[in-house]
């Protein structure tokens, strides 16, 4: 294997910003042995069924970052129409709406916003989305239960 490449300035800078000037409710910590791999936590936004939960995610910056979007996945189980049981996220800015002008910070904020505003019309978890649409009070109740069961700090 070739020697590890120097970390691009952009990643160094973003990492510094994340550590010195963190966004409220979001933490992102790079692994010591792989500075492109981050442990992320996002706290559930207030007034949502995710309130009080701390959700763990993993984030990886591919070789072509920022030309390519970061890869992000929920590690904590979560009941949400746009997040499937493997933790994959259906979010436009992680796919064709990605722009190199976006950052780890902005993406994590978008994910937090997604928790506050689920979009059952563009579901990734089909069964969850169906329930969300057909019986919203029950769906919200389940989301609350899951938050308590899996995302309690």
């Amino acid at each position, binding site marked *: 294997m070739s020697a590890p490449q120097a970390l691009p300035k952009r990643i160094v800078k973003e990492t510094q910003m994340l550590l010195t000037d963190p966004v409220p409710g979001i933490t992102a910590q790079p692994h010591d042995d792989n500075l492109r791999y981050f442990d992320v936590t996002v706290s559930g936004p207030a007034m949502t069924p995710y309130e009080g939960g701390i959700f763990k995610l993993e984030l990886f910056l591919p070789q072509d970052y920022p030309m390519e979007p970061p890869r992000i996945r929920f590690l904590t189980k979560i009941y949400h129409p746009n997040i499937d049981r493997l933790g994959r996220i259906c979010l436009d800015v992680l796919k064709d709406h990605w722009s*190199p002008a976006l950052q780890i910070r902005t993406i994590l904020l978008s994910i937090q916003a997604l928790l506050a505003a689920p979009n059952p019309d563009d579901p990734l978890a089909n069964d969850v989305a169906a329930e969300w649409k057909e019986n919203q009070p029950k769906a919200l109740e389940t989301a609350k239960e899951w938050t308590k069961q899996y995302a309690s700090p």
Partner: protein
Amino acid sequence: MMSDTTSEDHYEFSDQFDDDFDLQDPGNFDSDNNYFNIVNMEHVKASERRTVAEIADLFSIMVPMSTILLMAYFWNREKLSEEYIEGRALAKVGLTDADLEVQRKSGQKVQCSPRTCPICCDTYTRGFQLACKHTACIKCYERYLGEKLSSGDLLSTRCLGQHDCRLVATLDDFRELSKDLESGYLEKTAASYLQSHSSSFKACPGPGCTSIIELTSSLAMLDLDQYMVECSCGKRFCLGCKNDWHLPIKCDLASRWMNINGERMKNNLWLDKNTKPCPKCEARIERTEGCNHMKCRTCHFEYCWMCMQEWSAHNGMFFKCVHFQPSAEAKHSGRATSARLKHYSIRFDSNIIDSRRDVNVRDLTFSSQQVLNKAVPTLSYTRRILAWTYVLLFYVTGSNQKTILETSVSDIESHAETLAELLAGDEQAAAPCLELSGYLETRVENLITHALETNWKLDRNSLTYTPS
């Protein structure tokens, strides 16, 4: 252009004929025709430019913006016009009316005092900005737009200077940056135009050939299955499927046959395993990761990867992907079909091989030019028709029609054999040769008409058969 590299592959028929060798195709192949013109990419680009100019004129927008909108609508002028009037078209490319005004100007290169690029975080003095004037270093812009070009995604070439700026880099901006980016952009838009007009433009599949067959409206209306064309490069292919021609059977059966019997199987293996065609435009799509919500980069059709149905159908009551069917390529009573396949493919192969060998007869001693020019091509043509008729016989179930077809085949085959012997013999029997080829032409023409006009009942086992 003729290629020798494929001459070993006996399914690549067209390369085995010489330029001066005229097919005696009864009516379906005709180079002096009203059906198609052989044009080049410049012609397609001119047609694209006219479309773009019309839309730009209609809505008083700039030409580069017209191009982007047309691409977003897969060059469907009617739909674009309709949604533009309803005020929905701009949103489709993430823009507002105000953005449109700003986008009237093109971007520019700027020289500035050293500052930090928001993308690479290096210091730069040569920057680039779209009309919004948000700047990033020129290297990042070149790389970003270069990568967008190679991925063919020209609809989300966003401003790099500011993350919440919606402006899109258009042809004008590509042009400002470099000649290469500009010409790359033009190639991509032309390719997009060509692909969206696949019913009237057929790019020649000949190796290295850049010609395009433009169908006139009269042919675009017809069933293309039965039309063979010859490109100026010498490549002869079916207008329906762009494979080598396969009279007297239709494209779908021919392609099934190629899949189980031909070389194509090897070529297609990777594609079949790793990709699925877009349900709308059939562009091959490989999903590397992500959710089931797919958006075709070519035609922008949004669909579900599981069931290949339109994505919007998953709204409302259809959240569960009920359409999902595990690819049930049922392997029916394998053994019997396998034996039948063997029976017919031996006959297919031997006719194809003979059709090639017969052409070489003329290198021999035959002196009458007339015989060479008529009998040899007829014989070769007959063999190919026979080969593909065997494919038809493999797929159809027993019926009177099938019996009639089998009788014709055996009669034509024995006469073709006689002709081949005469041609190879020492006797130089010109008159019988010509007479026989006249007979074969008529018989073959009737066989093609019969094969094409009969409403065949297809054999289910053969249709679904895949050799293990």
